[in-house]
Structures are given as structure tokens and as C-alpha cells.
């Protein structure tokens, strides 16, 4: 992977990428409110479950397929996996999050001098898929910039985890160093999650996190909220 590709991946996974990642808690705000998550250990265990049963089982394998579809200029496959990802999103808030992030990322790409010339950004079928999930734009950009697939998945995984930990630090609240310790605890296991995700069959893709889905449903009517999901 070239140096340019490495740095472009960093740009895509940075919390400073203006797609509003820090405004979504994916049900964690309700889980904290109701006492399911009280401290740094609870955060670790909550995220560890999602890592195995949601992010590693759904997002990463779908991201890999979107990446291949981008490389092969296969808009049918690209749309199919974007539709599939959205169908797996468990609640109306999680769907809204997916679409909002997808649309925001597309707007970022529209304004980058290199990306603005990509034919995919001019074609309605591609744009529809891009506006359904942030994975679509992420995959397209990684494929276009020749970011190595495994590194793209690792990067996505890290950005998800970092964002969730930032959310937890704000919500519980935790000290900054507690948040860093949670992140550090994950560092030895993340590569294995990516490697496992790269060998999942199409038929075995799919998340199974019922308590997160219920937390996200209940967040829709939570009285006092900081986060949009």
C-alpha cells in the first residue's frame, strides 16, 4: 500500500471527518441511562459483544463486498450489499444514522478534487447506494485510492471502536485515561476480527445483538438525549 493510500485511509477514519460520527451512540445512551453500562468494564464488555456479533459479523464482511464491487465497477452488487446492510439495521434510528452518515460522506467525497471526478459520483444508481450507508462511500474511496482491503477493514473497525469509546466517555462519564485503557484492551484482538470477517461466507453474514436493538428502540423515546441514535 502506498504512502498516499495510508494517509488517505487515516483521513477517512479520522474523528475530524465531517460526517457527524460523534453524534451517534447506537443505543449506548439508553444502555447507560438504564444502568446496563456503568463503568469502563461494562463499556468493554458491551463493545466486545458488538464486535463479535455485529461489526465483525455484518459491517466488515459487507464492507469487503462493497470494496470488491467498487473495484469491479459492479453497480448491481454494490446496490445489493448496500440494500442488504440497511435491511439488517435493527431500528429506525440506526437506519437514519446509516443514511445520514452515507449522505454526509458522499458530500465530503464530492468536494475532494480527486474524488469529484469519479464517474460513480455522477451516476444515480451509485449515488443511491452511497446515500444508504456510510460503508458504501468508505468502500468506494478505499478501492479508488488503492487502500489494501485488510487495512481498510482494520481502519473502519478502529474508527467505530474509537467513536464508541468517545461516546462512553461522555455519557457515563469516564475519565479520558479510562477511555484510553478500554481502547488499549482491544488492540490485541482487532486484527483477528478483521481476518475472521474476511473469510465469512455470504450466507453467514448477519448481526445478532438483541439487547442493543432493544436499547436503540428505547432510545427513540428516551426523555433526555444528547445523541441521535
Amino acid at each position, binding site marked *: 500500500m502506498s504512502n498516499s493510500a495510508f494517509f488517505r485511509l487515516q483521513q477517512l477514519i479520522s474523528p475530524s471527518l465531517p460526517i457527524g460520527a460523534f453524534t451517534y451512540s447506537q443505543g449506548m445512551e439508553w444502555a447507560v441511562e438504564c444502568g446496563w453500562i456503568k463503568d469502563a468494564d461494562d463499556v468493554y464488555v458491551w463493545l466486545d459483544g458488538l464486535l463479535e*456479533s455485529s461489526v465483525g459479523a455484518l459491517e466488515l464482511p459487507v464492507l469487503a463486498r462493497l470494496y470488491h464491487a467498487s473495484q469491479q465497477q459492479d453497480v448491481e452488487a454494490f446496490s445489493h450489499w448496500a440494500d442488504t446492510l440497511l435491511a439488517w439495521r435493527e431500528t429506525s434510528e440506526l437506519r437514519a444514522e446509516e443514511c445520514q452518515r452515507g449522505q454526509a460522506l458522499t458530500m465530503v467525497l464530492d468536494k475532494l478534487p480527486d474524488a469529484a471526478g469519479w464517474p460513480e459520483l455522477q451516476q444515480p444508481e451509485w449515488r443511491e447506494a452511497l446515500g444508504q450507508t456510510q460503508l458504501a462511500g468508505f468502500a468506494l474511496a478505499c478501492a479508488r485510492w488503492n487502500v489494501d482491503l485488510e487495512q481498510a477493514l482494520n481502519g473502519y473497525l478502529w474508527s467505530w471502536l474509537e467513536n464508541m469509546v468517545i461516546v462512553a466517555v461522555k455519557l457515563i462519564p469516564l475519565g479520558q485515561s479510562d477511555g484510553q485503557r478500554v481502547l488499549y484492551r482491544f488492540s490485541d484482538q482487532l486484527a483477528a476480527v478483521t481476518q475472521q470477517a474476511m473469510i465469512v461466507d455470504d450466507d453467514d453474514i448477519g448481526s445478532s445483538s438483541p439487547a442493543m436493538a432493544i436499547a436503540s428502540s*428505547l432510545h427513540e423515546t428516551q426523555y433526555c438525549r444528547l445523541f441521535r441514535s
Partner: protein
Amino acid sequence: MTVQEPVPTDQAHREQPTSPSHGSGWQASLHMQLECSMTGHGAKTVMTGLHHYGPLRVQRPFYPEGDTAHIYLLHPPGGVVGGDGLDIDITARRQAHGLFTTPGATKFYLSAGDTARVRQALTVEAGGTLEWFPQENIFFPGAKVHMDTTIDLSGNARFMGWEISCLGRPVNSEIFEQGNIDARFRISRDGKPVMIERLKVDQPRHLNATSGLRNFPMQALFVATGCNEALLEQARELIEGKAGDMPCGLTLIDDILVMRVLGTRCEKIQALMIPVWQKLRQTLLNKPAGIPRIWNT
């Protein structure tokens, strides 16, 4: 109709595969269509094209509320073991309205090695209505089961249904410490996936994952098409304060109201879901509240 095989009567009998030509367990299938038929008393829904094979049967429909066919599915009486295959294929045609349930829970026993496979393909054509309310699936410790329930809707087809899963046997304090469950529930409309849900448990840690099952042995999903924000609000009011310690959430995915519950007892889960079903049934299908008679027996 095809050749009938002897019906096993107990689990011990089930240890002896009797259908060597079809793998290691029972292979059973049930295919049918529901059609709206004009009779002397007006329109009613009838079963057509019924084919069944092996120990998977259906009782004659009955009509406690006029045109709607109420149909009992009879699963293999000895329960399901590893290697068994159940294949259900039901199509509700235009204007047909069928309500399916089962007289009791479906039991999946400890597997000696093979996986039991259950495929339930439900198709509802434009103008048709299907209600799918089987009683719970009980997965005994050590069961290996792959279930795939697909609901294919066309146009304005309507569907309401649930899937209730019980891991282990909580009444006997038997925990699902080993085994392998992968149950998918998918709804698509006009060929496009709308919602996909999955219960996957193949490691003891999946039982106590805080974002997963949280040590609840039962997980339930209820869905109903044709809903909107106002109905979601009414459904939320119906369950307000009634869930107790059971995590229970409602949301709206396109026009599908989705309710999820974790619990320890089937009756308590049903006590949350049935009022929501009956309310939506009254509002969307213009059918009276009431529950299938067989549940009372």
C-alpha cells in the same frame, strides 16, 4: 399427497432414523396455497394445491370469523432432532387471508451431530394477508438447528407474525450451554430486502453478552406491516409499564412495526405481544380481537 411414513411417537423412537434415503433424519415438507373462493355464503379462503410429505401435517381449516381460514400446523409429534429437515412453503394469493398457528411448542432435541434444518418460505401476493403465529420453538441444550424464515411480499400484501425462541429449558433450569442455533427471519417486498433479523448462539458467551441475550433464555420478535408512527405510538402506550424486568423495545422499519422482547417465560412475553397484535389486527385488518382457541387448551 405422497407416501405417508410412520409417525414417531417419542424421542426414543426418533433415535432410529427410518428414512435412510433422505439423509440421517426425517425429511418432511408441506406446500400449499391459500386462495379466495366464492361460496354460497360469500367469499372465504381455502387451501389449494396441498402437498405434504413425512410427519408434517396441517389440519382442515376452520372459520371462527367468517372468511379468514384458521389453520393449525402439526409439527412432527416426537419433536425435531439433528438431521431432520422441515420444509414449509405457503403462498397466500390475492384477497386470501390465512392465520397459522400450532397446537403446541416445537421442540428441538439434543443433536448427536447433525444439524436440523427448517425452511419456512411464506409468500403473500398483492391483496393477500398472512398471519403467522406458531407457538414457541424450544431448543433443548445441545440442539443444532438452522432455521430460515422468509416472507416475500408483493405490492400491498399484509403480514403479521412472530417468532419466539426459547434456549434451553428454563423451567427445569436447563441452560443452553452447548449447541448451535442460527435462526434468520427476513422480510422482502417486491424482491428487495426490507428487514433481516437473526438469532445466533453457538458459544456459551453468547448467552450472557450484555449487548446480546443478557442471560435471558427467551427472545421474541413480533412484526406487522402497514404501520405508521401513530400506530407505533399506540402500541407503545399499550405496553407502557407492563414489561417489568423484561427488555422490550418497539420501532418502525419502513411500514413494519417491529417489537423485540427478552424474557424468561413464554406467557409473559405473549402477554406483551398479544395486545399489540390484537390492536393492530382490529385497526389494520378490521378483524376482532381474540386469540386462537387452541391456545386455551
